[in-house]
């Protein structure tokens, strides 16, 4: 009897590649992937053509880890294709789950993004050459993907089975998820309910943070580089450093606060949170220790980039999704 190994795929859409590195960073666990799966499609690791995937039977890939948000029509095409071919589609990493850093481009209309990339002071483009989606060459017509108005998380485009947040997901969490899937394959475990967030804890970063916490009363927000040195044992937020830990899903072992830096929220919203940024804003606002509006304004001015602070990872997945100008853009 020939044992046919289940098929595995991994894809990157609008992302940085860090998620792939995080997978490789599972060290010898990656061998278990090879032992248990037939890797059929993984552009960063092996050569494969889209047409090979298109030729596969629907549902023939057991597990696809999809990282990156949907920024252009190619991303969207592959997302739909992999959905069709996969039994289990995992939105892998912050970009696929909630848009992440590339999602901050949703603050600008697409034209402006292209302009910034191709015609600002740092770009030498004297002939104002802009990318075109199609170009005729003697061999025929060439295409490059077309940018869409906004970046969307994976589940805004296709049905997603599981969400695995993190920028990137922590390797120990990836290893645990891979172990789980392998256990399921061998009949030793069952899959969590569809739609679950996996590879996370059930609380917030504070739960894993060893720093002491007290009743909070913030008189000033400061950037971490302006405090030297921060008290290593006391809650960073209490020291006036805007730490996103209280609203962020646990699962990373509070790596940043443990290393002396504030949580920036890459693990996404905690389970009970719909709009991550709104939650954080109300939480921060609630513990500002001031009565006069002018004083409150002064304290809030200590957060120089509120959108970047509150929605660094989650803008496209938030109820706001993007700013109005981006939506209206042609």
């Amino acid at each position, binding site marked *: 009897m020939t044992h046919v190994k289940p098929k595995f795929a991994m894809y990157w859409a609008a992302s940085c590649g860090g998620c792939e590195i995080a997978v490789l960073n599972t060290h010898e666990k990656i061998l278990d992937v090879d032992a248990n799966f037939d890797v059929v499609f993984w552009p960063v690791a092996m050569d494969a053509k889209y047409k090979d995937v298109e030729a596969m039977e629907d549902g023939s890939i057991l597990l696809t880890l999809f990282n990156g948000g949907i920024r252009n029509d190619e991303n969207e095409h592959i997302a739909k294709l992999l959905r069709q071919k996969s039994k289990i589609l995992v939105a892998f990493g912050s970009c696929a789950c909630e848009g992440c850093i590339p999602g901050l481009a949703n603050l600008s209309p697409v034209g402006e993004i292209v302009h910034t990339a191709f015609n600002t002071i740092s770009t030498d483009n004297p002939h104002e050459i802009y990318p075109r989606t199609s170009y005729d060459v003697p061999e025929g017509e060439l295409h490059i993907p077309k940018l869409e108005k906004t970046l969307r998380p994976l589940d805004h485009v296709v049905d997603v089975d599981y969400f695995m947040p993190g920028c990137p997901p922590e390797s120990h969490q990836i290893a645990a998820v891979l172990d789980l899937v392998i256990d399921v394959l061998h009949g030793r475990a069952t899959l969590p309910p569809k739609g679950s967030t996996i590879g996370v804890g*059930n*609380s*917030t*970063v*504070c*739960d894993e943070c060893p720093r002491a*916490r*007290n*009743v*909070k*009363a913030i008189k000033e927000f400061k950037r971490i580089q302006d405090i030297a040195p921060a008290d290593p044992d006391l*809650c960073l*937020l209490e020291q006036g450093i805007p730490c996103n*830990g*209280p*609203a962020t899903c*646990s699962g990373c072992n509070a790596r940043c606060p443990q290393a002396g830096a504030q949580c920036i929220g890459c693990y996404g*919203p*905690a*389970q*009970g*949170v*719909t709009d991550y940024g709104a*939650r*954080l804003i*109300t*939480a921060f*606002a*609630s*513990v500002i220790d001031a009565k006069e509006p002018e004083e409150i304004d002064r304290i809030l001015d200590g957060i120089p980039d509120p959108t970047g602070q509150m929605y660094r990872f989650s803008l496209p997945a938030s*109820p706001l999704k993007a700013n109005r100008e981006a939506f209206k853009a042609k």
Partner: protein
Amino acid sequence: MTEKIGVYVCHCGSNIAGVVDVEDVAKWAAEKLGHQGVVIARDYKFMCSSLGQELIEKDIKELGLTRVVVAACSPHLHEKTFRIAAQNAGLNPYLVELASIREQVSWVHTDKAVATAKSKAVVSGAVSRVIENAPLEEIKVPINPNTLVVGGGIAGIQSALEIANAGFHVYLVEREPSIGGHMAQFDKTFPTLDCSACILTPRMVEAGTHPNITLLTWSEVVNVAGYVGNFNVTIKKKARFVNEELCTGCGICQEKCPKKVIDDVYEAGLGYRKAVYTPFAQAVPNYPVMDKENCIYFEKGTCKACEKFCPTNAIDFNQQDQLLNVEVGNIILATGYDLFDARRVSNYGYGRLPNVFTSLEFERLSNAAGPTNGNIVLRDGKTMPKSVGIIHCVGSRDRNFNNYCSVICCMQGLKFAHLVHERTGATVYNFYIDMRTAYKAYDEFYQRVLEEGTLFVRGKVAEVTDAARYSNERGKLIVQTEDTLAGKQRRIPVDMVILSSGLQPRHDAKEVGKMFGISCSTDGWFTEKHPKLDPVATMTEGIYIVGCAQGPKDIPSSVAQGAAASARVLDKILQREVALEPIKATVNKEMCSGCRICNGLCPFNAIAFIADDNVSEINPALCQGCGTCVAACPAGAISGTGFSNEQINAQIDGLLMKNLEPVGA
């Protein structure tokens, strides 16, 4: 489970139907929201009428409705009505949802198509929300029969006496050494010219000796916790340095105290008091207080004249501030007003020109028990004025200061005119913008003052100056004013100017409001629950406002409000228990990470941090369901019954019409 939802769209006469096509809204709801469970949608002229309510009750019984949406006015107005209707028909009252298509639609739109479309969205939101509503049971708690009255002016005294006379205990807290308030400073009261002290002091004494009243003067409320029926109030009893048990109020200490201090509270800066003093002869209680700032012993370490001469050894220099805790069921705030500081109108010269007086100074000047024994004289203390100008609306009805009318200043100005005329025979000018003499016997008083020969100049005074232009102005104060009736500018030289200053909210009204959990209007007066129908209650159950704390008013109105609030409090006390809305916040312990953001926020101190479990916990007995912690919890670990994420998200989806087709279709 599929719900059976009834939707009822109210015409509210033409209030809603005039702008919204209510029939279309009802028809649309039946058609488009059927898949959500809407089995019946009706429109009716007045849903809140008994016939309207019966309509709902009948449908609940006959159609077996499990949820009800009433599209009508704000929940503020009739939520209770429809909840009771549902309850009468056997449906849990919390399964009723109100969609406000009056306040939020018909009253704010004129375009019928837009208003109708918006009404549909609002109804759609309510339908989606009501599906997520859970049946809730009211919570009954006993009411503590004691009452706290804050402020011992005439309004507070009236409140306290009414309740005490009905047989219930009252704590009457006053910041100053004596009760009596502003009324105790007045000489005469308009329009009857009753002697203010003569009518007030019997009430003060009654309040001071009443077995059901615990009088706490020289005291301030510093903290309020709890909720209607069960407030826990912390009162700071400031050190008097006089043992109240031993003091007989004989007054020897005041007599012997060598330190004279300008009395800028009671005597408005015109007279002196001692460092140990009672503010006035009829003060209640009659025990003096020691003014630590000015006492020679506290300053230099020697003196103690008062201690030496006190026949009962009542002086106690070691006395400390005390914190008292009292449990009360209801609270009446009668914190009064501050007088507008006339210095702010610098062009009227108060503080710069000696013979410009404020209304309160004049009250003391004309008071027989005042610093001049009732002689109306210039600042030199002896010269009787031959001409007096009284300026109305100082600091009121003026965009530079307060827009509102201070209500009492016209009558006050007329009273001053009468007193000046009667006591000095001087020529009196009243400078007014509009004469406001509403209420019983007020205009008659105006007629009387007119007949007495007081001159009235209608116009806003530009300036009071001592810079003479003409020989007849030399040594005088010149009132430069527009005379709108004569149509010209006038300069009127007078010996004395009285500024009929307006009333202002207490300087600390905002903080006091915050402490008691009530809000202030933009002007700073405490906000009543309803400006017409509920003028003494506030949005916080169990807290009432009376007298000038709620807005400028005269003595009769203050007394009426004091009595009105007492009736409301007695009503509550006699119910013995109060039904609390079962709207409570709860912490999901699994999701709580103990970040402690919520810990300092609860206005009712209902949140405790359990260090062993590293989670925060909410005490349901203390929680008032205000939602502060629910909003603040960054983990979304706190949810409030009646306002769950599911309910709110469903309502948003409904408003956005995302619910029109079943998901996935």
